[in-house]
């Protein structure tokens, strides 16, 4: 039965014109994770590789392609967990980082803490030599369009993102 990798994008409403890119993206990410396992890598290596691929894909709400907060900025969260030891690492409200999942893994591997947030997470990234990237590099035209649309009076961002019950 083993080994296996399973990945997901966001649950909610995916516009028809974006559904093919979303499907292609998860398939590509799962192939990358599976290649890690086939090469003898650990399950942790595999999930970080798969999620890194998804963060780098502008079709998904993570890394490049993240939705914008009310101020038009990007704040990202990520977490990893290792089933062998129950070790875990997370970052929250982190800015200007291309791959928050890799930073979360560094929190798990290099600190005695479980979660670092905000400026503290960014300071930790600097101390680990993780490069900061310009905010603009994480923002897509699509995410900016949705942000502007949801600034209008009467907008319902949660409904816009989640859509209706399946």
């Amino acid at each position: 039965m083993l080994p296996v990798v399973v990945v997901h994008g966001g649950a909610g409403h995916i516009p028809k014109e974006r559904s093919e890119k979303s499907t292609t993206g998860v398939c590509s990410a799962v192939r990358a994770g599976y290649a890690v396992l086939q090469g003898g890598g650990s399950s942790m290596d595999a999930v970080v590789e798969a999620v890194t691929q998804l963060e780098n894909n502008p079709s998904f709400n993570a890394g490049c392609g993240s939705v914008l907060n009310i101020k038009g900025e990007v704040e990202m969260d990520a977490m990893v967990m290792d089933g062998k030891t129950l070790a875990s690492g997370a970052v929250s409200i982190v800015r200007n980082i291309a791959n928050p999942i890799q930073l979360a893994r560094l929190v798990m591997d290099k600190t005695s803490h479980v979660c670092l947030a905000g400026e503290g997470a960014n300071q930790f990234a600097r101390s680990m030599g993780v490069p900061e990237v310009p905010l603009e590099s994480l923002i897509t035209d699509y995410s900016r369009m949705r942000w502007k649309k949801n600034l209008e009076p009467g907008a319902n961002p949660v409904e816009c993102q989640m859509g209706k019950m399946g």
Partner: protein
Amino acid sequence: TVGAVAVDIEGNVASATSTGGILNKMEGRVGDTPVIGSGGYADNEIGAVSTTGHGEAIMKTTLARLILFHMEQGQSVEAASDLGLAYMKSRVDGLGGVVTVDPQGHWAARFSSLQMSWAAAQKNTLHYGLYTGEHFTQSI
């Protein structure tokens, strides 16, 4: 939100989840993703889960750990995932989706929302889908 779970050749499980959050959120809002037991969980003795959906609803129900609780009680990965999502819908009216594995390599991709893109790779076969009930396969 994006995420992944995996089982390696030694039977070790792992979970990873990452997100930009929710559209036009308040500055400083934290959702389920970085919260252990909500955005994800992994335990070699049970399995691993990564979640997506209504972050506040997922946190209120600690969805990932809830699904693993059902697996501890003997439910399959698929049934446990459905039970967790159904509880979240009935208790706090939240929608979402999950990917789940157990240490033997059984897996599930389940969601209560209209759509969730997902993919799995096992035994050199790629599985994927988008709408409820969709399950396409191709050789890797």
